[in-house]
């Protein structure tokens, strides 16, 4: 599909395309021979990942004698397979830039060929691990919306060659003169900041895992031993154990953060955001500004206390690729709170909104009920689980204190919810312990929905969910009448949007070239107006539906 171009430049684009197609076929290029060495380890991991269940079964099943030889041949054959894949990959991978596309083919038995349209590229990443550095090579990863993502294919190219491909692809989308300037980085993260990022991450998960593993070991021991150990464990020992688990997980997270994000740098180069990071393996991701779809600013309370937040920059390439969940293209691990506005302005200037200086609209007052209900249910589940787990101890029932604590937390959560819909952006914010703010470019909306659970219908609440290519943005609960009004406004915007897009206007449809007024709803409606609306209209058309006569 063509990218949206204004009608006046349509002929120019056609001409360019025709000119490029007339060009001679470019030669197919291959990987650097050092890829045989560099790729061996990753390919081994890939092979292992593909067959690990079989491996596990064979290696740990109870077998008779003579199996050592069998196991050995099994392991050797896996290595042979991995080596074979590395060799065949080097010999069969060919790529070239032809016309407006990057063409690629690889595979020995099963030939695969991929074509990437330059205008569909969401971001380009250059990765260099220590082995790459030995030879002066890099890996080029390209992400597009949909399935044509390139990971692990262009795995050993000369640095200059990779840059050449990157620049050529970019130039196809924006045929402007690009001067390579050394720009001052917008944002840098120091080592201390990265370490703090690691420590302030979510560590509860690790502790839960450790606890689960511990209890598994308990159950595997025979009962008398287990009882002996259990009697030894008293409150202090258990507390000490948890403290150890926490500090262990902190150390682990800090180390991992350092490994992934050391030397983090954010730059803006000719309408492209570029992030560079990594201790042993250097990653450099480049995202065109106009491909940025959604920005999420995540502030866990620990990070917030320190004055920082994490910023996730998402394009349409978010999603599942090669079996891994890709979280976001660009991550700024630690951004200072007073620089949030600046970063958003740079990363997504088209949204023209600043949730830190502009006030957001509050959720519906009755949304507090729902917040309380949800927190109560969750805290009841967690505390009863803890009580059951710690039942042998007299103080186990103390775990129930989680329930009353959840009430003020629910109130705070609700108080910090906010939303805003402008002509250019959708903003949503929620949470107290983990505060998240989402900013979505309104042009990237794929569909809009309103949800109502029975509880919400009872209280006249509704939840707007906006779906974009990649992730969804959920707005706080608002009144149903207000929600429906917003949906109508979307419809109006889609009227004008359609006019601006390159979709051909067929004769049977009216040529609606006048701009229909789309109000910036954030400004007009005051708080009083909100509460007035909700008292009058409550349900999604329950009345209208029941006035129908017959039921089939």
């Amino acid at each position, binding site marked *: *599909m063509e990218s*949206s171009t204004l009608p006046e430049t349509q002929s120019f684009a056609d001409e360019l395309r025709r000119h490029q197609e007339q060009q001679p076929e470019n030669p197919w290029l291959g990987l650097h021979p050092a890829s045989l060495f560099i790729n061996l380890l990753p390919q081994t991991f890939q092979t292992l990942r593909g067959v690990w269940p079989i491996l596990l079964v064979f290696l740990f099943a109870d077998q008779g004698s003579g199996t050592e030889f069998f196991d050995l041949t099994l392991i050797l054959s896996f290595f042979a397979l991995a080596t074979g894949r590395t060799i065949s990959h080097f010999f069969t991978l060919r790529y070239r830039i032809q016309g407006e596309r990057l063409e690629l083919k690889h595979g020995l038995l099963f030939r695969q060929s991929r074509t990437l349209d330059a205008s*569909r590229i*969401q971001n380009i990443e250059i990765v260099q691990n220590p082995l790459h550095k030995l030879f002066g090579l890099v890996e080029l990863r390209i992400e597009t*919306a949909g399935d044509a993502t390139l990971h692990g294919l262009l795995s050993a190219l000369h640095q200059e060659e990779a840059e050449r491909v990157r620049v050529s692809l970019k130039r196809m989308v924006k045929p402007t003169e690009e001067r390579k300037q050394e720009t001052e980085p917008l944002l840098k993260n120091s080592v201390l900041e990265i370490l703090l990022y690691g420590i302030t991450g979510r560590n509860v998960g690790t502790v839960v895992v450790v606890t689960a593993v511990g209890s598994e070991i308990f159950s595997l021991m025979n009962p008398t031993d287990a009882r002996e150990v259990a009697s030894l464990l008293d409150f202090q020992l258990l507390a000490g154990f948890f403290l150890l688990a926490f500090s262990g997980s902190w150390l682990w997270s800090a180390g991992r953060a350092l490994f992934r994000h050391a030397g983090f740098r954010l730059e803006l180069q000719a309408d492209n955001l570029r992030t560079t990071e990594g201790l042993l393996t250097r990653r450099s991701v480049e995202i065109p500004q106009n*491909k940025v*779809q959604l920005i999420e600013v995540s502030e866990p309370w620990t990070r917030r206390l320190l004055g920082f937040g994490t910023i996730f920059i998402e394009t*349409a390439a978010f*999603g*599942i690729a090669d079996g891994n969940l890709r979280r976001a293209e660009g991550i700024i691990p630690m951004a200072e709170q007073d620089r949030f506005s600046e970063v958003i302005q740079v990363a997504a200037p088209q949204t023209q909104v600043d949730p830190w200086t502009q006030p957001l609209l509050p959720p519906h007052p009755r949304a507090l009920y729902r917040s309380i209900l949800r927190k109560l249910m969750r805290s009841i589940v967690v505390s009863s689980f803890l009580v059951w787990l710690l039942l042998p101890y007299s103080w186990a029932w103390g775990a129930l204190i989680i329930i009353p604590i959840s009430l003020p937390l629910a109130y705070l959560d609700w108080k910090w919810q906010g939303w805003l819909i402008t002509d250019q952006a959708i903003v949503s914010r929620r949470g107290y312990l983990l505060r998240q703010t989402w900013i979505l470019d309104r*042009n*990237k*909306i*794929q*569909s*809009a*929905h*309103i*949800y*109502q*659970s*029975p509880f919400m*219908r009872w209280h006249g609440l509704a939840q707007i969910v906006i*779906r*974009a*290519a*990649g992730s*969804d943005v959920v707005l706080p609960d608002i009144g149903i009448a207000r929600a*429906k*009004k917003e*949906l*109508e406004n*979307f*419809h109006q915007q*889609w*009227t004008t*949007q*359609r006019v601006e*897009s*390159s*979709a051909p206007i*067929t004769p049977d449809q009216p040529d609606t070239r006048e701009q229909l007024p789309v109000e910036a709803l954030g400004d007009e409606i005051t708080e009083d107006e909100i509460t007035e609306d909700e008292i009058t209209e409550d349900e*999604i*058309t329950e009345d*209208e*539906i029941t006035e*129908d006569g017959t*039921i*089939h």
Partner: protein
Amino acid sequence: MYEPDSRLDPNVTFLWRVSRTIRFAVFGIPFAIVLFTGLSFFFQNWILAVILTGFFVSYQLLLAWVWPSLEYRYFRYAIREHDLLVQQGVLFRRLSSIPLHRIQHVDTRQGPLERLVGIARLQLYTAAGMNADGSIPGLAEEDAERLRDELSKRGGDDGV
């Protein structure tokens, strides 16, 4: 506020009742038997197991026989000038607006039972997600084809 007014084909209630009954017969009954034996073992009390299994069975039958007419009643859709509006759900209500120009492609699907009754399911795909972004589950075949053609004409720009 515009209210969508097109409804599904009335035969869907029959279709849903039949297909859910079949599903209950094939999966539900064996599961109920397993549930009963499991519960009576767990609780050591067959009365309790009967009661709980009874809840499960009556819930499944409710879903199979009573629910379809309600679902039919609460399903509405409309193709407006620039979007498709779908309203559905009995307990959990949902109102969806899918801009026509974001539609990538439209599929019609028919299972064997649906083919017998002459009903098709329409599925709309946008750039959001690998599953259908919107679906209309019970249209008469001709309606489904007509809708599909109409929607395909106006789609294509995903703005990505």
